[in-house]
């Protein structure tokens, strides 16, 4: 939406994961019932999204008027800083919320066994996707965001305070990133490399779906997720390779992505 390709979104994801682990650790340590661990997890993930404000006000706003190259490099600077900031705070060893993953038990769906936690996360992400869609298409704020993305000067001339819009949009994006990181944690472990790893996957999702298209991002995520699972079970060597090849194929055949608009 801001037309900034943010290399740092993976770093926010990693940050959310670590904060999530810490929050759950503290929650369990304080004697909270394990069945509700998802509440502090999600709250912590959302709360740490405020770093978005700091990053946007402190760094990104200086490069809005610059060439895209410098915007890209600025987000790369954030990647470098965040990676070490996380190492400095949480150390280098992977962290996990041991044992809480299966708190909610498992469920048989269509003949396959799935942990209930996964189903909760799927439901939550669907709800978030719908919420974002509603925000963008049905509210005044959403209309302002889309107008800004279309034509910044015009929106500004009509009295939109660009600084506030950018700060809000970036913070929202960051909060979603950190929330995603926090929610994935019970199923895996937080590692300082996860941010740099994720960016490449997120990049694949966005390119396949089309830059600046929410529906596209959703479909892209489904495509990437499914392909990875299929590739892992058929020919593991090809797992990530296959995704990159598809990214390249999409960029070559349809540079705007499967759902990209005309003016991407």
């Amino acid at each position, binding site marked *: 939406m801001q037309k900034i390709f943010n290399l740092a979104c993976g770093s926010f994801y990693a940050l959310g994961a670590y904060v999530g682990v810490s929050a759950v650790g503290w929650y369990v340590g304080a004697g909270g019932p394990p069945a509700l661990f998802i509440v502090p997890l999600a709250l912590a993930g959302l709360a740490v999204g405020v770093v978005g404000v700091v990053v946007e006000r402190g760094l990104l706003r200086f490069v809005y*008027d610059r060439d895209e190259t410098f915007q*890209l490099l600025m987000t790369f600077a954030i990647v470098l*800083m965040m990676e*070490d900031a996380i190492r*400095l705070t949480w150390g280098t060893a992977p962290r996990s919320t041991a044992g809480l993953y299966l708190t909610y038990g498992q469920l048989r769906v269509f003949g396959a066994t799935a942990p209930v936690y996964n189903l909760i996360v799927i439901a939550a992400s669907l709800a978030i996707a719908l919420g974002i869609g509603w925000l963008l298409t049905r509210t005044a704020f959403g209309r302002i965001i889309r107008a800004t993305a279309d034509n910044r000067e015009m929106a500004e001339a009509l009295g939109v305070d660009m600084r506030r819009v950018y700060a809000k949009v970036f913070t929202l994006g960051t909060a979603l990133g950190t929330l995603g990181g926090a929610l994935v944690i019970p199923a895996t472990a937080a590692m300082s490399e996860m941010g740099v790893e994720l960016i490449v996957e997120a990049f*694949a999702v966005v390119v396949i779906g089309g830059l600046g298209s929410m529906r596209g991002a959703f479909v892209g995520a489904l495509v990437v997720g499914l392909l990875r699972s299929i590739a892992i079970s058929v020919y593991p060597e090809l*797992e990530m*390779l296959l995704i990159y090849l598809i990214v*390249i194929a999409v960029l070559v055949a349809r540079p705007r992505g499967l759902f990209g608009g005309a003016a991407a």
Partner: protein
Amino acid sequence: MKAGLAVPLGVAAIAAAPFVASTYHVLLMLPFMAYAIVLLGLNLLFGYTGLVSFGHALFIALGAYTGAFLTTHAGIRSLEVILLTAAALGALVAIPVAALCVRYVKIYFGMLTLAFGMVFYTFVLKFYRLTGGDEGTPFLRPSLLGRSLDAMPKIDYLVGPYYYYSLAVLGLAALVMWRIVQSPFGLCLKTIRDNPVKAETLGIGVTRHRFVAFVISAVYAAIGGALLGPPTGNVDPTLAYWTHSGNIVFMTLLGGFTSFFGPVVGAFVFIYLQNWVMSIVPYWRLIFGAMLAVIVVFAPDGLLGLVTRRRPALAGRG
């Protein structure tokens, strides 16, 4: 700037380093010279053509793995053969990659090169029979000008013959690149950077020129990559990772992409500063990230730009 005086002085200083500096610092000069070659090529694309690649680690790794494969598996130890093979392979791989990438500019170009870089990274990581997976492949000591130097102690070899060999390759690479950017071809590239539409109107084949610039920069990256191998004696997949591509763009920006020798200065400062910072605290990324942010905001022309005060070519409204 008085480049006429600065260049011979710089070359003399590098040539004299093994006699005056400590072995530790002389060893740091080896990656510096290798990266300087890579960056001379990268800047043909970045500074002169206006395309920023986030995937040139692909060609560095390709060059390094070529050398590792030839010395370890094929029994070929001649560094001349290794460098020529690396250059040829670099060009061979660059041709299809460039043909696809130069159809786009700006952020799409960066993203597409990043994707290609990661394809190669995954390939290196997964096909461990060929590449040794995440452990990498040993890069055995190459012979120089047909003379096997296996009997020499490793340090003597690196600060002696190998050091001057690298310097000679760097000198040659810089000379050739200087001729390229001064040629009509180089002028065309600058025209394309400043105004692609006008260039097209003037009859310059924009896509074809970008393509050739990309292939040349890939050849430089492969040669530089091959020279990175011998000092460590091992090449591993991190060479191909996208953050490595980011780091070399960082080096170019640090020195200044608007001048010919800016990237060389950037490589020097980056490597020494990184070593110095890491000797104090392990968190060099935190400091370098902050440094990069400061450069992007306040000194987009880099260090040499601060000296020469030239107008930034890429700054301002894109």
